[in-house]
């Protein structure tokens, strides 16, 4: 059945070629969507057996030197990631056809964009089924370059070119580290095959720890862990909404996939590795969520929240590592299953949130919290979808984010670590997770409240409404998925089950889940009650008396006097001042009778990025100068990137296609 998965590659490439060839945007979209649909069906057929614990699928054939032999191997882990990555990309492409409509109306050709979306799917198939380091790197690089080209869709804007360049550099720094790790492995094994890597890594050796750290760094850069996250908020706020959604929800999960792939290759980890992963995840979750609390740009906010969520997943994986190292099978299964499920859940609600943010951008041409307000009345559907996504993001019951966090909590709080001090560390991690959840609720409340509730803050913004069906339908599907995965976690857990079965520990997922079944039923009961309340209140009180908001005695309140985003987070930011440096720019009137008008502006910078630029010497100037050296006609850069991509692909396949 692996051939069914690999067959999707030519289908996707054909789709990409067609999308480039068609002059009409509608036809290009149809080509991309139909080929992605076909390949998603191929892939799902191929992996259906795997997630239920079927044997891994292998395929290999000889290839001319220096590669020697190309091997593909798809196991439950790859199957899990493939099972949702391609459908999610398909939804993103459908969304794109609606989102980019205003650009198409101005005569922009969307063919390359659709072709690149197909290439993203190609890269998933390559990465998730590779058994050879070169195939893996090929997929890795296709994903990186295609994502860069997708980010700079609006390339006329210098800021967006800069964000794209920033991403490109960061992702290649990660690539160098990865290549270094592979070279190290190659020098020891004289092979590029993962099976040979596995044989070497399973033995204790001094190189093992080094390789673990190199790989960890590279994958952390890919998944935007703190402190390697600086490219992420820029890229996410610059890219079109569907690209941000796919990058955050799907593409960057490749980093965590690769981490798990090498975990399985490496075999039983050492204890320090577990603590490293747990601490690293906790650090990411903590800082990611802190930064969400002060952002003005919704998409930047969601970007930081990705750093938070991969951190939560990594906390799960760290727990899994520790359980494996300590020989406590239930901990290992809890951790890995919780982390994997959280990745799936995150893909659902984060894509949903980015799509909703895109709908806001389409309607108002801004995603600045301080200028929006009152959109729930003009865009009721988008508001509802954003709210569901936001509640899921905060891990609140009965939505899907809750279930995966509970799974991780149940491991952290189980008290089954071998020593008391280890238990204390795990409970402390649980308390940190609780903090992260609460701050995430603060950010969700702030973002949703300022954008959708209250009154419009800026009357000069255009007054658009809910988006068209092509944008709405992916959102509705994702929202339904988030609710379904929350109410029936068995669905998500069934996908994860095969992967946990790959762990050589004597415990299975059903065994770990048994104590949680009562909690899941309690959540369902809560959901049913809330559903009844919703039904009752939907009709009740619609025709009730209406009056102005109580102004506490003040009668001339205006929308400009509403609470702002910065005042909302002011007290919180003050408590965590050490981590959230604020920059104040002010000119206060000093005369007794001020003649000149003063101003005051506060801004929260990314501490890591600031420090990084300081180290670079000339601060932001340096990077702006560098990016201004990119040719003035970036269309050439765009075209050159595309051509390079195809030439490399053609060379690799042309030199040794076996049939």
């Amino acid at each position: 059945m692996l051939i069914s998965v690999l067959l999707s590659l030519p289908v996707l490439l054909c789709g990409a070629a067609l999308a480039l060839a068609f002059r009409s945007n509608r036809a290009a979209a149809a080509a991309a969507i139909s080929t992605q649909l076909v390949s998603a069906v191929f892939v799902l057929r191929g992996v259906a057996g795997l997630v239920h614990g079927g044997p891994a699928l292998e395929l290999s054939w000889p290839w001319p030197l220096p590669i020697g032999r190309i091997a593909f191997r798809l196991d439950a882990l790859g199957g899990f990631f493939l099972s949702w990555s391609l459908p999610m990309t398909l939804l993103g492409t459908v969304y794109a056809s609606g989102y980019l409509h205003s650009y198409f109306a101005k005569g922009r050709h969307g063919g390359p964009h659709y072709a690149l979306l197909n290439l993203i799917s190609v890269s998933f198939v390559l990465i998730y089924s590779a058994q050879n380091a070169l195939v893996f790197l090929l997929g890795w690089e296709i994903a990186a370059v295609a994502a860069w080209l997708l980010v700079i869709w609006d390339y006329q804007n210098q800021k967006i070119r800069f964000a794209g360049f920033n991403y490109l550099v960061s992702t290649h720094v990660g690539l160098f580290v990865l290549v270094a790790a592979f070279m190290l492995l190659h020098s020891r094994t004289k092979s590029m095959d993962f099976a040979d890597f596995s044989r070497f890594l399973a033995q204790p050796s001094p190189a093992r720890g080094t390789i673990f750290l190199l790989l960890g760094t590279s994958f952390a850069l890919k998944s935007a862990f703190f402190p390697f996250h600086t490219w992420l908020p820029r890229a996410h706020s610059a890219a079109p909404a569907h690209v941000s959604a796919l990058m955050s929800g799907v593409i960057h999960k490749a980093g965590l996939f690769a981490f798990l792939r090498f975990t399985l290759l490496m075999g039983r980890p050492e204890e320090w590795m577990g603590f490293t992963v747990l601490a690293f995840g906790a650090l990411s979750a903590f800082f990611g969520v802190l930064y969400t609390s002060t952002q003005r740009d919704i998409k930047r906010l969601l970007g930081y929240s990705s750093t938070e969520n991969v951190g939560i997943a990594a906390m799960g994986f760290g727990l899994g590592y520790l359980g494996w190292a300590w020989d406590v099978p239930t901990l290992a299964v809890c951790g890995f299953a919780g982390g994997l499920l959280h990745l799936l859940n995150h893909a659902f609600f984060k894509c949903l949130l980015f799509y909703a943010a895109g709908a806001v951008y389409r309607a108002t041409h801004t995603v600045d919290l301080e200028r929006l307000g009152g959109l729930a009345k003009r865009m009721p559907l988008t508001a509802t979808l954003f709210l569901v996504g936001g509640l899921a993001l905060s891990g609140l019951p009965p939505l899907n984010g809750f279930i995966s966090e509970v799974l991780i909590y149940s491991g952290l709080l189980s008290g089954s670590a071998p020593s008391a001090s280890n238990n204390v560390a795990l409970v402390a991690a649980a308390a940190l997770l609780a903090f992260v959840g609460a701050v995430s609720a603060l950010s969700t409340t702030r973002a949703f409240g300022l954008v959708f509730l209250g009154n419009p803050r800026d009357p000069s913004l255009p007054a658009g409404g809910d988006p068209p069906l092509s944008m709405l339908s992916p959102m509705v599907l994702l929202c339904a998925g988030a609710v379904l995965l929350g109410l029936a976690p068995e669905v998500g857990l069934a996908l994860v089950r095969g992967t946990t079965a790959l762990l050589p520990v004597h415990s299975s997922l059903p065994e770990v889940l048994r104590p949680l079944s009562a909690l899941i039923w309690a959540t369902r009961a809560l959901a049913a009650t809330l559903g009844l309340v919703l039904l009752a209140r939907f009709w009740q009180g619609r025709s009730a008396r209406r009056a102005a908001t109580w102004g506490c005695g003040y009668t001339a309140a205006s929308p400009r006097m509403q609470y702002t985003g910065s005042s909302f987070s002011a007290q919180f930011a003050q408590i965590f001042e050490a981590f959230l440096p604020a920059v104040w720019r002010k000119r206060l009137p000093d005369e007794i009778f001020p003649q000149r008008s003063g101003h005051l502006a506060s801004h929260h910078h990314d501490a890591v990025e600031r420090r990084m630029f300081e180290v670079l010497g000339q601060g932001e100037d340096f990077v702006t100068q560098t990016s201004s050296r990119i040719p003035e006609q970036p269309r050439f850069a765009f075209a050159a990137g595309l051509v390079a991509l195809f030439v490399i692909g053609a060379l690799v396949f042309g030199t040794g296609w076996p049939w």
Partner: protein
Amino acid sequence: MAFISNLLALLVMPFFLLGLVNRVKSLWAGRRGPPLFQLAYDALRLLRKIPVYSTTTTLLFRLAPWVFLVTACGSAAVTPLLGSRPLLAFPFDFVWFAYVWALGRVLLMLAGLDTGSSFEGMGVAREATFSTLLEPALFLVTGALCLRSGTHSLSRALVPELGVRDGSLLIWLCSVTTLFIVLQVETARMPVDDPTTHLELTMVHEVMALDHSGPDLLAIQLGSAIKFYVGASALATLLNPWAGTWSAVSVVANCTLSSLVAVIVGTVESLIARLKLRSVPKYIAVGLTSGAVALLATAWRTAGAP
């Protein structure tokens, strides 16, 4: 039997405890004070009223008070209101408890923002900020209690244990401190919040309910009363020497101790002035620290045990 007693307690005690707090405050102030079941009379009065909604608000505003009430009842279901045998007990019910509580809080905060009033925005921002410090404190304490008792359920973990040599006395003391602070913050009591202040600028919890009226306001008041009872009874269980076994003595002791907690809350409220808003996070940090001490003490305990 346990089921019916729990339901009865949930129906009666929230009204009684809030009445008791107000009675204690009146006595300290030299007044006679309102009847003990004043909240019940208020409830009947509010039920008859027709609500008025702000023109700015949406469906969310009508929804939030009732969701808040449902979540308060949900959290009451897993709390050992009478010292043992709660309505529901399952592994990791305290995680469920904390998140259900958070859901109600988030909805109420959103309803506050829904009105577009800057006063309510102020209250919402404060509530959100304080809750970020409160949640980890709650998890530190429940985590420590679970490690100490080797169980994963709130009703078992709260059963007191007072050995001096193995450090469980320290765990117990710290847990009581933290839970008391959690109770004060979550139910908007002095010195964190003044439920009777007339100045919207300094309110936290009350300001979020400014625009609610009629039955909606009742839902919020009832929800807050239930939350107060949940907190007080959890604290009472931790203080109750007969907790953990279902007996008449234990039930009576738990009710008495819950009332005692209400009396202490009322006394604190009468004798202490409200903290400056800037100092509230420091007060919560005391709870956080004592939670951390409780957690660290579990390591000592297990290391010291044979």
